[in-house]
């Protein structure tokens, strides 16, 4: 299987909010270790529902690895839940 890491790490995210097809665009995030990751591209954003709570999942990359960020729209929190696809 792919060597992805499953995480549940609270992260600080700088995002741009606007209009159009992608109204929320994460720009960069800071991990618990203090390391900053600059988002080079958003692969896909899709919502998931946990009961009536919507969590938006952002699959992003910094060019060296792929990451999964999850934004809880009720609690307004960001979590890093996966890291993988390093070559």
């Amino acid at each position, binding site marked *: *299987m792919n060597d992805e890491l499953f995480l549940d790490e609270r992260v600080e995210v700088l995002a741009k909010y606007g209009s159009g097809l992608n109204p929320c665009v994460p720009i960069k995030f800071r991990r618990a270790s203090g390391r900053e990751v600059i988002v080079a591209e958003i692969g896909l954003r*899709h*919502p*998931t529902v946990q*009961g009536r*709570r919507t969590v938006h999942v952002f699959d992003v990359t910094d060019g060296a690895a*792929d990451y999964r960020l999850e934004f809880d729209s009720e609690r307004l929190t960001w979590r890093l839940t996966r890291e*993988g696809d390093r070559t």
Partner: protein
Amino acid sequence: MKTLRHDYNSETPQVMHIDLNSCFATVEQQARVRLRGRPVAIVNRRTEHTMIVTASYEAKAMGVTLGMKLKDAKKICPGLVGIESDPAKYRYVYHKMLDIMNDYSAHVRMKSIDEGVIDFHESPRAIRERGLESIGREIKQRLRNEIGCAMRCNVGIATNRFLAKTAASLHKPDGLDVITAANLRAIYASLELTDLTGIAQRNESRLQAVGILTPLQFLDAEAQVLRSMVFKSVNGDQWHQRLRGWEVDNVDFEMKTAGRQFVLDGYNLPYEQIIKRLHHLCEATGKKIRSQGKVARGVQVWATTHREPGTRKESVRGGWEGQHGSRYWHARHMSTMPFYSDQAIYSQAKQLFVNAPPLIRTIGVTVYELSDDDDPQMSLFGDELAREKSIVSAIDEINDRYGKHVIHSADTIGVGDTVREKIPFGSTRYL
């Protein structure tokens, strides 16, 4: 069936079939940028011994096929990346695709999670006048704009659903083809019988038995031959019409059964562990029929077993059911009263499962004889049924609000992590 038409349908094509290419692998490559251009295989479990559900085009080019075990695929494609399926992602893409298709016609039918049909016959004139090829190209572009730049789809345009699907499979990936009465014979001449949707090994043998070896011979066969010698039913007439571009597949089928199955997560699991998993499947099945406003009257449980030690693996036509040493077992029960609660399904399934064989590999539960849950007839047990209905509705409401399986039987605690939701192939009712 109405009078058979012997000519080819020469109307302007008004049916469009859209098929996402290697859907689940493409969606993963869209989401995970660093997987693009790499061979990717989607599997349902995080293990090397599982079957491949979808492979990316890069993997297919290396000889990886669907149904192959991941560990075997890695032998012929060493760089293959195995990814566990993520149904929420595919469901999102399905809904985006459906939204786009709905912009062009009120007559859209999704055939499965990754393909759908737009019927333009009753679309506004302004849309039809643009021409379906132009609309097809626009839909391709919209998929890239609204989902992501790695998304590709095949578009097929024809006079009926069958030919539109055939057209969509001509140039993968990212093709756009039109089949009309003018190029129909040339297209058939380039295909094998099994390239036609609905013609697999069994139907191919039936056709070959009467000397029909190619799609062109199939097209030229008389309706009488197809009806009385090949398909031995009205199916023969339908094929005669379908091949000529006349519509016979514009039908919706009623929901007749619902169920779930699960390949056990261990060899020779103890009976009580299997029963817990069966209970979870019953809960999922109950939720399925209630979500569609149905009640059931029959329950079937089934199981397949591992090959018994010492028996030789010998695949024969018919797949796993035909494997020597492996057994398919089932039992069913029909009730006089309709039911819909998880508890009612489970109590019957559990009773039936007592006779299940040892060494079980796969289990499944299916409910059948479904009908609409609107029977106004008062039964002798009216109060009892009303009370059960209130409890079931309350549980469903809580689970809808706070998440699946927030309230469930104590028996299935922890089983939900094992029996996880998988890709819903086939019906799109639950998407």
